[in-house]
């Protein structure tokens, strides 16, 4: 995505007060304490194990580290994880931004 498009999107989002996830194709991640993670607007499950879950979104990856992780529910763009959560890390693509 060209840089100027990105800027226009940011500007429109700000101007109309729209939620950032809708405008910018970013995942919305909600955690409930450290037991549930609710991820919307993702594009794919990359890796899944009891200690680590990696999720793809438009402009990068999210890595969730924890213990005893499991997917409670998985839909097209939603993911509900449960388990003992330790950290959520972002790895944006170097290209995007």
């Amino acid at each position: 995505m060209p840089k100027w498009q990105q800027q226009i999107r940011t500007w429109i989002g700000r101007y109309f007060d729209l939620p950032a996830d809708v405008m910018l194709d970013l995942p919305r991640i909600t955690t409930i304490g450290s037991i549930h993670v609710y991820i919307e607007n993702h594009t794919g499950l990359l890796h899944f194990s009891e200690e680590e879950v990696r999720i793809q979104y438009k402009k990068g990856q999210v890595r969730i580290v924890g213990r005893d992780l499991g997917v409670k529910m998985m839909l097209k763009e939603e993911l509900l994880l449960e388990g003992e959560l330790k950290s959520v890390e972002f790895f944006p693509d170097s290209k995007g931004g």
Partner: protein
Amino acid sequence: MGNQRGYFEGVLTIEASGPLLEPFLQACTRRGCRVTSLRRLDETTVRFTIRLKDWKILRSLRRKYKCRLTIKEGKGVPFLYKLMRRRLSVAAAFLAALVLVFLAANTLWSIKVEGLTPELEAAVEKKLNTYGVSPGRLTIGMKDPNDIQQQLLEDIPDLLWIGVKKQGTSYHLYGVKKTRHDTNQDNQPSNLVASKKGMIVQTFIKKGRPLVSVYDVVKKGQVLATGELVEEGETFVHTEGDVTAETWYRVEQELPLQQIITLTDGTVETEYHLKIGGWSVPVWGWWRGTDGSYRDENVTTDWRVFSYSLPLNMKRVDHFAIDTGAMESSRKEIEKIGRKAAGQSLLQELEPGAEIKDEKVLHLSEEHGKVKLILLYKVYENIAETKYISQGD
């Protein structure tokens, strides 16, 4: 909430193994699968549950992603239904077998006719067939053996007697043919005597010697014609002939002026009950009102298994509507009715060929709402009676 819905639609627990598990799951969800309770079991195996209707999507994708799928468990209504179906068929088969046994036990399998000539046997069987009694028919709703017996005796004049017995699933008929005994009684010496008091009107003696003539008044038992052709002779012959005499009958009647008549006007309401032991459960027609007066007729059908009668019966109750009406008649009418009835009953008592020649009202009075009627009838009838003469000894 989603859980409940999943239960109704059916839920499959699946174990998948292969090198490309994550892409596989991603592809599945992109196509609309709903993957829940995803857990990794080991490096290459995951376990998850999907809705039953998503199974097709999984199957179509498993080759592409080189996954091995094994169904571990099926839960929910569709699986329950399947299980029930399997048991239901067993139950249905059992029920069908019961019905079959019941029907077989209530089918007429054979008819045995004994004691009759082949022609008569064939006639009996043919008649039975027209009554609806033939092998292979259900005995439910068939006529009672007693009725069949009665009807056979009426319809086949050559039968002297027939016994119809129901033995389990077969009918046994024992018949006796009517044998016509042509005894030579017609040739035995006999007299003609008067069977009742009367005045001779006409004599016609075919054989024998007449002893009376027209206008003679004879008493009961008097010899009218004798077989002794010559007086004090040795030869006795058979006497034959008709002697018509005038006889008299006195008929007394007492008839009420007012009569209460109950009439069935033909309206029938039928109820059906299922009788289980002493209980009677209305099955059909119980809603039909019983307003007005009714006369009830109960018909109970026995259902049998072999020779045991079931405690289950079908009872039919027919309600016949009754109209009650009082009929007031005048004295004149009563007299007319009385005369007619008296004449008819008299003719019924007399032998055929008798003729009422005259009718006279001797007495007609009315008291306490009743009409007393005394009639005198003059009748012409044959009074000749054959009496055999015992010979020898």
